[in-house]
């Protein structure tokens, strides 16, 4: 609900507007629009007033943006002439269901990928295919291997839709070759999450073509990267989904090994799902054995599969099931000596009283994330096409996202960028926009920030550092890294200030890399401050990093790592610190002893 000041401000704004003082009204509405958390109906009223003020001032473009924010697309479209503001016009047309028209305008203004997507949304598969072919031939893709791979992938899907299987196969093959090479390159450069995006596309490619090998490649490498980033729930969601897919495709052996890996992972990271996956592994190994037998496959493979099932069952503690599996093993046409042994073991284990089974919860639905599978083959291509143009990115953001505080912040940034006083060449304008962009906590905002960083004025680049410090994505560190070595001291200073702000679990790996690569003590201290915050948020991996630093380093660097550790607590942290302490002698042991005393303090009792 608006407070009394806001109500009063709105009244003043309306009076000013009625009295023909549009500039004054706009200033008052601008103040109101800063309260982006306000409940929708009231905010919309202010936005509507701002639109009216803009119109009264003849600033039709900004009025159009306000109407976009209000979802009044037909009205908004009137203020975006197709020849002058083609993207905005097309966005409105798309929302009005005019996909063909939107596509035509987008195609004509150098956005063939967006045009293709509009055509697909309108069901025009054949025409969409033509647009995708234009994308593939676009000269802007030169030296952009990742985007080129995405373009081929989208073309391949388009060709499948029009039943051109030969063409689709060629395009998928081209995409596959490029994706593998690009993923490898990203991993070599340490850009793990970009490699992950490649594997996501490969996964989708595999499913689209029914090629299990590519699905396996996509899932297993994706899991590897997520596990290294300590993204436990994403890892398990991927394991779970890959397991289901392998079963669906009757890849029993692969499914069994995946289940076993999921169990081992779950146990290793302290989650509760190991027993569930052990049970699945046992079932699937047994299934593999039976299917192999039924298909007349090599006998020893069946026997070994039963052994693997028994192994999983032993870890589970289900000995009667062990016995039943030994009994099946004994039925195989193996040498008599082995069969006798297995029969004896079957009798012994089947006679064991069942243990009270511990609960074996499976990975629950509420831990699944809808964001686990992003359509990066679309999103990243759109990013390439928009090339970091702030108004284009922001306009699309406002239209495509649900109305909430984030889109309102994006709209404010958009209005700043489209003000008649805004000039991309002006350092002050660029700086104001950078700060406004930084208030939009979203991955898509990084590309306009990266473009603004190319500004010749240090003031603008410094503001980019302030902006990016609010966007918690791994990619934000790419910009910060550039800022740290910027020739302008003011920019480097802001980059340094940005580091402690970027504290989130995904950020641990890039933070650790910056720490290891930098010889500048100020940078290292700033990084440790950030890692300390990540540790405080519950990341044991961050605790390990701090421990390592406390053991190996000296001086102020050790001091800040120790201080970060001393503010933590909990049994796991205490255990880790004690283990590290026990392994040391001399001065290092004393340092860790002091830390241990600090973390192993009694907390206030609740009961």
């Amino acid at each position: 609900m608006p407070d009394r000041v806001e109500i009063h401000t709105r009244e003043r704004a309306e009076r000013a507007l009625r009295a023909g003082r549009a500039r004054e009204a706009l200033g008052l509405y601008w103040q109101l629009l800063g309260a982006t958390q306000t409940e929708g109906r009231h905010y919309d009223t202010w936005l509507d007033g701002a639109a009216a003020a803009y119109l009264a001032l003849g600033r039709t473009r900004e009025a159009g943006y306000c109407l976009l924010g209000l979802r009044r697309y037909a009205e908004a479209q009137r203020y975006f002439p197709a020849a002058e503001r083609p993207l905005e016009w097309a966005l409105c047309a798309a929302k009005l269901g005019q996909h063909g028209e939107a596509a035509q305008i987008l195609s004509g203004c150098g956005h063939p990928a967006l045009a293709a997507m509009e055509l697909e949304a309108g069901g025009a598969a054949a025409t969409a295919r033509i647009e995708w072919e234009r994308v593939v031939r676009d000269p802007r893709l030169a030296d952009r291997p990742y985007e080129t791979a995405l373009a081929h992938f989208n073309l391949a899907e388009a060709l499948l839709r029009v039943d051109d299987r030969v063409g689709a196969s060629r395009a998928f093959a081209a995409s596959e070759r490029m994706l593998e090479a690009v993923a490898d390159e990203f991993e070599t450069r340490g850009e793990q999450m970009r490699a992950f995006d490649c594997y996501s596309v490969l996964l989708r490619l595999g499913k689209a073509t029914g090629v299990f090998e590519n699905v396996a490649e996509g899932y297993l490498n994706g899991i590897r990267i997520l596990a290294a980033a300590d993204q436990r729930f994403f890892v398990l969601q991927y394991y779970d989904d890959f397991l289901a897919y392998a079963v669906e495709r009757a890849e029993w052996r692969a499914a069994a090994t995946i289940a076993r890996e999921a169990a081992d992972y779950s146990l290793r990271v302290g989650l509760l799902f190991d027993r569930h996956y052990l049970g699945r592994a046992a079932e699937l190994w047994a299934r593999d054995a039976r299917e192999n037998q039924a298909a007349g496959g090599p006998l020893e493979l069946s026997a070994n599969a039963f052994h693997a099932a028994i192994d999983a069952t032993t870890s589970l503690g289900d000995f009667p099931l062990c016995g039943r599996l030994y009994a099946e093993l004994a039925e195989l046409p193996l040498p008599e000596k082995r069969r006798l042994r297995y029969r004896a073991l079957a009798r012994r284990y089947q006679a064991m009283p069942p243990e009270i089974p511990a609960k074996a919860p499976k990975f629950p639905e509420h831990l699944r994330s809808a964001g686990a599978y992003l359509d990066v083959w679309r999103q990243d291509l759109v990013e390439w096409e928009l090339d970091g143009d702030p108004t284009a990115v922001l306009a699309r953001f406002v239209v495509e996202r649900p109305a909430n505080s984030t889109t309102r912040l994006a709209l404010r940034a958009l209005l700043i960028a489209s003000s008649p006083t805004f000039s991309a060449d002006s350092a002050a304008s660029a700086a104001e926009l950078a700060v406004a962009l930084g208030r939009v906590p979203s991955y898509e905002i990084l590309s306009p920030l990266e473009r603004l960083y190319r500004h010749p004025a240090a003031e603008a680049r410094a503001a980019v550092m302030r902006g990016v410090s609010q966007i918690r994505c791994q990619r934000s560190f790419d910009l910060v890294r550039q800022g740290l070595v910027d020739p302008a001291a003011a920019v480097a200073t802001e980059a340094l200030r940005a580091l402690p702000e970027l504290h989130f679990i995904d950020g641990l790996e890039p933070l650790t890399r910056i720490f290891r690569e930098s010889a500048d003590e100020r940078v290292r201290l700033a990084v440790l401050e950030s890692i300390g915050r990540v540790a405080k948020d519950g990341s044991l991996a961050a605790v390990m990093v701090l421990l390592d630093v406390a053991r190996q380093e000296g001086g102020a660097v050790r001091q800040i790592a120790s201080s970060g550790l001393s503010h933590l607590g909990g049994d796991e942290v205490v255990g880790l610190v004690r283990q590290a302490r026990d392994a040391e002698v001399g001065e290092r042991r004393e340092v860790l002893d002091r830390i241990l005393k600090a973390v192993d303090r009694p907390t206030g009792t609740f009961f």
Partner: protein
Amino acid sequence: MAGQPDSADRADDRAETELRRQLATLTYSQVRPATPADGIAAAAWWNLLARLGFRLPLVVVHDCGLLLSGGLGAARGVRRDGAALGTAGAPVLARYQALLHRIAGAEVIAELNASPLRDDSLAVILARLFGDVHLRWASPGGAAELPGSSPTYELDRDALARAHDPGWALGFLQRLVEHERAVLARLDQIEAGSLRLLGLFSAEGGAADLADLYRLVGTAGATDVVDFSLQLLPSLLETKRRPAAQRFSIDGYASVERRGNVDALLPGELAHDDDVFVQKALSDDLLYYGHERQNEASRRLHYLLVDASASMRGAREIFARGLALALAKKLSLQGGDVWLRFFDSRLHPRLDLGRAARRDLPRLLSFRSERGRNYARVFGDLAVEIGRLVRDEGRDVTLTFITHGACQIPLPTVETLAALAQLCGIFVLPSRPLDLDYLPRLHRVQVVTASSLARSADKRRRALQIIDEAASG
């Protein structure tokens, strides 16, 4: 800074401290009587286990190691006074004692004690037995390796226990006895097959990597690969083994070697049982008469590539590696060098299954890729290497790559390779019909399906045919 211990001294201090801490736990040992030599042996096993990531209390390594290795002898045994134990932790120790008796009475102990068990094999078996329990125990251990010799081994155990409270080990013993059935079940699972594998690779001078050995025994796939290739090997070798068909003469033979043509096998090798003969063939233990190598044989190079990427996960991996192993042996018998390498996004180091089978076979069986795939780069690098081998060394190269049905190699690269070498592709269990634009450029293509690998005699002939054709390139 002067006066500060250097890192070597610190390491020594840590090692001694850890040794005392661990030896103190031997007050809980249930093996009587105890000797310092047992402590030294147990420390060696402990170090091997620590390399595998398992830091168990030394008392468990000591007692179980002695049981498994047959080191107790007739004069010693596990105590039988469980109820009379008067020490701290007596209930746990009584159950621990009972568990040791059950271990001692297990069927597999007799098999293990029948022939000397090397330390690395013992460590691997202990790791398999206690791995589950270790995972569920918060190990308070340090990072030091125990010294192999130290006056500490001679110290009185009780005195050590008074100086270094061994109570921490009771936590593990508690877990151990709680999971007794699982431990005994693991013991029951130790099969002749696993022992056979360990025996193949844990020989004098074998130098197999410990972690590879552990993975070998722990992963279902490793045994499958050996079993699958052993299924094929007898047929590869048996037609050459009929003694009546062979005539040997010392004249013309200059030496006795470990590699050679089957026609040059020493007569004594033919006397072995089939099982032993095949195992010796697999680990390159057969002896051959050697003679002057022909120029053709020395120029010949069989280059085998095995796809190790995640795409091979499942049955594909087993069949690919089993075929590779069998093919490598077959090609070795034909003469010429055989190089085998895994590939994913890179070409991995060569495995020499000819000259260093014991060292490299575990790697073949348990190798796991840690990267994605990049076939353009791999085969591009290969083209450069093979070009050099052909041009500069005059080698006559046959390249066989074993992979899956979605292996996309750029066509120009395949054309370059095909101009340099005989090129054979073996595609294992493709999930869809092969649709690769470079297939016509290969000199030979084999598609391995599940039915071609089935166990009936006529189906096995198909697998052998694949190998024969690949080897005849």
